[in-house]
């Protein structure tokens, strides 16, 4: 009705009956178009997440060869820094630099990586890359392969659920600490303040 009433008045009056009858069709068309768009948009997220990982895996391999970060595609503002693997769950994902929301659409991101103090914190979405955090168990091993060629294996020590602004980490991670963080609860479709953190300790 809103869109259609912009037609010349004379014609609109003459064809009032026709317009009213046509209205439901317009609605239906809009429903179909809109529904398709939203569906496509929704599917785009996991698809992008998956496709990006393929490109990222390639960039990671190049980075590993060159020893310096290589952008996965020319306009990317982020680059692979490491690969996180959980063999038991068949997980292998490329971790991106910087903890920005944009980078998180493509892969897990490195919120903090202070090797001097032995603390590494990764973040990703609970319904894409870090869905596996739900299935992690204490004792699982997590490997972190960095682009400088080093590889560190951690063992999952425990979990905690905290508000996003109440998360703390030890100033010194001892031999080495890794935290995988994501939204919580899993399966929920509403963004909330809670975060799930899996803590893992360096082996050996």
């Amino acid at each position, binding site marked *: 009705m809103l869109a259609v009433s912009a037609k010349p008045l004379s014609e609109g009056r003459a064809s009032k009956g026709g317009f*009213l009858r046509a*209205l439901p069709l317009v609605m239906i068309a809009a429903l179909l178009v*809109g529904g398709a768009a939203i569906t496509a948009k929704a599917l785009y997220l996991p698809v992008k997440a998956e496709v990006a990982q393929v490109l990222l895996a390639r960039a990671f391999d190049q980075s590993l060869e060159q020893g310096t970060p290589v952008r996965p595609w020319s306009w990317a503002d982020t680059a692979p820094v490491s690969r996180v693997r959980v063999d038991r769950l068949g997980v292998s994902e490329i971790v991106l630099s910087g903890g920005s929301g*944009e980078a998180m659409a493509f892969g897990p991101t490195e919120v903090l990586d*202070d090797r001097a103090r032995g603390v590494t914190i990764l973040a990703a979405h609970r319904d894409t890359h870090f869905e596996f955090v739900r299935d992690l168990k204490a004792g699982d091993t997590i490997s972190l392969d960095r682009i400088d060629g080093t590889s560190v294996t951690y063992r999952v020590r425990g979990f905690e659920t905290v508000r996003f602004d109440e998360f703390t*980490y030890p100033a010194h991670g001892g031999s080495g600490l890794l935290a995988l963080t994501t939204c919580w609860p899993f399966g929920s479709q509403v963004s909330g303040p809670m975060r799930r953190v899996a803590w893992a300790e360096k082996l050996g």
Partner: protein
Amino acid sequence: MRRMTLFLDRDSLTVMLILGVVGMLALVASAFGAPATANVSPRAADEAIAAMEAGGGTAPRGSAQSEGGLVLRPAASGGVATEIPAMRLGTDIVANVSGQTARVTVTQAFRNTSDQWMEATYLYPLPEDGAVDTLKMVVGDRIFDGKIKPREEAREMYEEALENGQKAGLVEQHRPNMFQNSIANIGPGETVLVQIEFQAPIRQVAGDYSLRMPLVVGPRYLAGGEGAGGTMTRAAALAGADDLVAPTADPEMVARVGGGLNPVSITVNLDPGFTAEAISSPYHRVNVAGSGEKRTITLADGAVPANRDFELRWSAAGDAPALGLFKQRNGELDYVMATVTPPSVERSRPVPPREMIFVIDNSGSMAGESMPAAKRSLLYALGTLRPQDRFNIIRFDDTMTVLFGSAVAASTRNLDEARRFTNSLDANGGTEMLPALEAALRDTSGDERVRQVIFLTDGSLSNEAEMMEEIQRNRGKSRVFMVGIGSAPNNFLMRRMAEAGRGTFTNVGMGDEAESQMQRLLDRLAQPVATNLTASVEGGNIDFAPRDLPDLYAGEPLVLLGRTRHLAGTLTVSGLIDGQRWSQQVDLTQATASDVVAKLWASRRIAEVEAERYSGQMDYERADKSIEELGMAFHLVTSRTSLIAIDETPSRPDGAPLKREELPLLLPAGWDFDHLFGGHSASEADWAALRDAMADEEERREQLNLPQGSTNYLLTLALGLTLLLSGAAGAAWWRRRERSVQGPALPSLQRQLA
């Protein structure tokens, strides 16, 4: 109406569809226009994270400051002395208080208990506004008078005497409130006396007077230490953080020494010019003898360890003199000191709403008794806020946290949060005060409300110049108030920061003193008594210092120091008291003679030159030159001039070896040795081990805001599919309907959409 009814009757589904489409258009718009979950622009994300951090999080360690130090770097204090020193020291202090100044004589006896020839150095504090003008070295029955020399020249003369086996004494200033004595060639079993004298003004607030004698230098935190690199500006570097080296005595070693290490005896001859009442010493037990205007105060326990500041307080019976005027002729010039106390008036107006920013130091040097005192002071201050006031809290060690994104109303909820935050503070880490200062001075309010920044700290840091510079440059309309916490705060820093910030400073000692001292400060802060002060002289030509007159709070005097060719004319001090114009005139020719005014003027002038240097108004070399001239002319120890006394006759035989010893300092009372030095780390070499030990400490944690961790694409997908399904259902319905009606709907629709 009839039409509408018909419309509904004919097609009630249409209405639902209209609503559906409107809602859907909105959804489509939001899905395409402003993607809600995953594709947040990096900039918006950054800003959101910044807002979250400011709103209650800690900036990650890396962003706040360096790796400078986990705790106080022993390098700043020369490590820990576990051996009983061969050189033993006893100190005697006699302070003659006359009117508004004190003349203090400090005698240090250095006794060599070893069988070797020794050189000894001792780092000691003096009042931050003290001016050392005399040095005497006493060897046996011979007395050698010290001469004032430019710093390098004095150092060379000393080194030469040291080589030649001559006895020599050197007094150097390391900070305006920190001095070092070096004594060369003390023979086996010999005792050398070094006597210095200085002038210091008496502090006066609201009829209460105090003389504070710092007795120990606390280990200082070196800001931006190793690894941080480049954080020290030239001024800070030249001020010489690396020279602040003196070992700290291990408490176990001190316990082994009979009679205590570095004992101090103190005598105060009090002659304030009126009958002093309520004479008290908050940190030491004292005996008071005499009656009337002249009293003698001595320590009740005889000699005490030099591990806490000595303070003597007294007050005037009845009205304190509102005016003091003293003059001195020195060379070709007249010097004058005028003390004007504006009358206290009953407040007729309510205190206007204020913005108060509290900055609390929770660095490692605050461990022990200082942290509880700081917390109590802050909690007390929070309790005095009114709903119309705004406030914020910033805590710092080598990281910092700003409690609220910007100053918030003092609502019950905000205050509760602030109390929880305060109670949770632990003393740990280094002292990087600069970022906290920068954050505190950032004024985002934009309104005219009084803005007061209150620092609670012991000021144990060494980049003082940078702090001053920051205040001078960015103070805006903020007033900076310093609350010196603990038994040996860095009062020089406190005083200069408060001065630069046009505020005041107060010392808060231990325990019960916290609330009462805070109360006094806050009462005064509630409303400045006199503002917009100006001073002018008619009928004479004279420049007074300070040039920027501060606001005066209840009972505070305005102290003006001036110099002129010929003292004449009338001084007029005017300002606003409680919104009313107030002025007072002083006939300068009525000044009484005093022999301390010229030196007080000179030390005040030196402090101003330092301030001008910090603020960049004077370049470094010119400031140095100016300070050297003042030091030479007034025979004062400054950053550029030292006192040197040399015995012309060599005493150490040729070939006899000389051993050098830095006398260890006691840790200020209330400081936690184990906390600072991590148990018994004997030397710098153990520092790495200490760091590792600290690493295991579980309580020390950093806070970090975690990013949003979900795309919620399933919800979006469900919505999209629902819309698609309803669209499909609608289409099916339409087809059925069209088939039954067989009307001209299709051509009509084509016309509509054309």
